[in-house]
Structures are given as C-alpha cells and as structure tokens.
C-alpha cells in the first residue's frame, strides 16, 4: 500500500462548482497535513496547513482532517478557471527529526469557464 494516495483525476468541473479533493494515508503517525497547489512546471504553493483532526477555513478553501479514517479533504467553493492546477496533499510525522513531508501524487483539476 502506498503511503499517501490521492484520487487520480483529472477532475473537470464547471466554474462556480464546489470541488472536493481527497487523500488517504496509511501512517497513523502523521499529524500535520498540508495542501499545495501546483501549476504546470512551477513550485508547490502552500494553500492550507492543519494539525491533527478537524476543519480549517481560509477564504474559498476548507481543509478537513479525519485521523480516525486516515482521510483528508480540501474543498474549494465557487471554483474559478484560475483554480485549474494540480493539487498535492502532503503530511508529516512530528516525531520525525528530519521533518520530511510525504506527498501524494496529486489530482489535476480543470475548472471550465
């Protein structure tokens, strides 16, 4: 089983739709969870950073973490064509001295005008 898995996509939605992006993971030691947006041939851009279970909202973005199910989600409200990108989840184990972040393979999102 891969350590972090994401819905493969690509996902196409109409402008204005609510988008749900998800990751599952196998390592129960992960406590910190991040969502990044990556445009083609660019660096990952941090969107959300959450600790343990619960919800966090920032503008049109909401991150949810369910540690009991080892499942995290990113919701995008009122999606825009500029949201078209690959979305990466990443997570880390706080006990890991090196603090490496483990990434999922990414979900490609297209928001159609």
């Amino acid at each position, binding site marked *: 089983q891969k350590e972090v898995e994401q819905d493969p996509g690509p996902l196409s939605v109409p402008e204005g739709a609510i988008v749900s992006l998800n990751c599952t993971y196998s390592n129960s030691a992960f*406590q*910190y969870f*991040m969502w*990044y947006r990556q445009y083609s*041939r*660019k*660096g*990952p*851009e*941090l969107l959300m*950073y959450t*600790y343990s279970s619960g919800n966090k909202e920032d503008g049109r973005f909401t991150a949810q973490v369910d540690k009991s199910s080892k499942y995290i989600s990113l919701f995008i409200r009122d999606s825009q064509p500029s949201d078209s990108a690959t979305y*990466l989840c*990443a997570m*880390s184990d*706080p006990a*890991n*001295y*090196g*603090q*490496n*972040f*483990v*990434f*999922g*393979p*990414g979900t490609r999102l297209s928001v159609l005008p």
Partner: protein
Amino acid sequence: EPEVTQTPSHQVTQMGQEVILRCVPISNHLYFYWYRQILGQKVEFLVSFYNNEISEKSEIFDDQFSVERPDGSNFTLKIRSTKLEDSAMYFCASSAGRNTEAFFGQGTRLTVV
C-alpha cells in the same frame, strides 16, 4: 511577501558533469529542504538540513549528492556526476521551525543530456 528563490530556473548539463543548484530560503527560517519531481511523478523528499547539518536524507540522496549552507543566506545542492535519471525539477523549501509549514521555491529544471 517573503519567498524562496532558486537559481537557475533551467540547467542543461552533460552526463557526468557536476551541477550546483542554488537556493535562498526565507530569511528567518531554520529548516531547509531539497525535493525533486521527475516529470509526471510525485514530489519526492531528498534531504533536510538544520543547524548546519543534514537531519535526514532519503535513499535517493546517495554519495553523488551533497548540500551546503556556505553563508548566512544560500543553500546549495550539488550533484557530483550527473546521470540521465537525475533529470527532474528540483525544489528547495524552508520552514520556520519544527512542525511548521514548508514554503517552496519555483524550482530548477535540470536536464541531463
């Protein structure tokens, strides 16, 4: 807004040559990282660096790779003898402290011919 900067944006090198990829992390950050992303694949951890030493490295980070913080601002990744399979995007990242979010640079695209 502070950002991680990387140079060059694109580097073409011949197999067997040495390359140095350069990064300027965010100024008050203490943890530094290198990740790579082979085209079409996921972002993979290479190495983390804290307090002037490597804190963790992956299996990818073999003896051909080295990192250095030569002064108070730069963080470099050296590949001593490049191979074709080293062709990838290389991302530098930094974070302010333990268990805090990591910010990524725009990457250096390394092409080995």
